[in-house]
């Protein structure tokens, strides 16, 4: 059953991730992101991290994606992005190459560790006993009223209670730091998104001459793309287009 849940949710997660990448409309990409986040929440339930599954749905799918959709509607970028344009030469191929390399590195690390990627379990470690997941924590208090003879075969302590105890005892300092972090984030967002005084100046037109290839995109972005004679201080003498596109990639 765990295998069935895993494979179904893995398919949902990867389909959603692919949707985020290839969807031309940002709203559709955000909805694909919701699909991925729900799949991750199902995996958290599969891994018995029930509190994180709930938080995943509430915070990610409920708050962050809604924030994304708010901003999409606010700034009015719900137009389809033209995926055919390619302002950086060979950007897409290089990105796929980098992704393949990253995946290869991950696979090599997994294989090189001989499948034993998780190391030594913490069962024999007495210091980690208060953080152990599957064993009941021996608490002398009787706040739950079932004594202290509970074992792993009996009902362990609920996930939320264990996580809460860990957060407010061992990780309480980091927990307080997150409060400061969130406060700074809110203040920073208010400062940055505030409408400043006076008339807004448009951004100065900068044309990074090394990324534009105005010969290849006959699209609405062409009017912001300057003519090639004006922007290239050192015009790359390309007698043929294919070798220049194949080797010249100075920026990435």
């Amino acid at each position: 059953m765990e295998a069935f849940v895993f494979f179904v949710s893995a398919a949902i997660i990867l389909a959603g991730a692919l949707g985020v990448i290839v969807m031309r409309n940002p709203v559709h990409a955000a909805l694909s992101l919701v699909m991925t986040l729900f799949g991750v929440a199902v995996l958290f339930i599969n891994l018995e991290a029930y509190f994180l599954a709930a938080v995943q749905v509430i915070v990610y799918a409920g708050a962050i994606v809604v924030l994304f959709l708010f901003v999409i509607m606010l700034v009015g970028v719900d137009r389809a992005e033209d995926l055919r344009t390619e302002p950086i030469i060979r950007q897409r191929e290089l990105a796929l190459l980098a992704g393949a390399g990253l995946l290869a590195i991950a696979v090599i690390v997994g294989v090189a560790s001989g499948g034993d990627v998780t190391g030594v379990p913490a069962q024999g470690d007495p210091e980690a006993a208060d953080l152990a997941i599957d064993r009941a924590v021996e608490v002398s208090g009787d706040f739950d009223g079932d004594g202290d003879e509970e074992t792993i075969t009996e009902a362990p302590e609920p996930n939320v209670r264990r996580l809460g105890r860990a957060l407010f005892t061992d990780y309480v300092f980091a927990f307080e730091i997150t409060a400061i972090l969130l406060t700074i984030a809110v203040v920073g967002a208010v400062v940055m998104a505030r409408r400043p005084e006076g008339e807004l100046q448009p951004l100065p037109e900068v044309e990074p001459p090394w990324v534009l290839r105005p010969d290849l995109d006959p699209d609405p972005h062409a009017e912001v793309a300057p003519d090639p004679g004006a922007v290239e201080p050192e015009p790359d003498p390309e007698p043929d287009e294919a070798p220049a596109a194949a080797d010249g990639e100075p920026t990435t």
Partner: protein
Amino acid sequence: MILAITITPGYYLALSALLFTAGAVGLLVRRNPLVMFMCVELMLNAVNISFVSFGDAMTDLGGQVSVFFVLVVAAAEVVIGLALVVAIMRRQPRATADDIAVMRG
């Protein structure tokens, strides 16, 4: 039969690697800043999966605690990033990631 497979942590880590790669490729390919943020969220979720999987394999609660803090940092990052996007789009409504080179320096 698919139900007979025992799901080891390697399966979760493989899924995590795939999801992280998908997010990285999307971050490199897309030019809309909002979609780039979504790809960052994909990468953070991949790391969260591996955190919880490691924690489950080692019967340690530290993985779930780490995911909790990653969630908080992701929320702060999204708030700051979207405020930046709003501030930039207000000045130049059709800006892509290529147009934000003016911010450098």
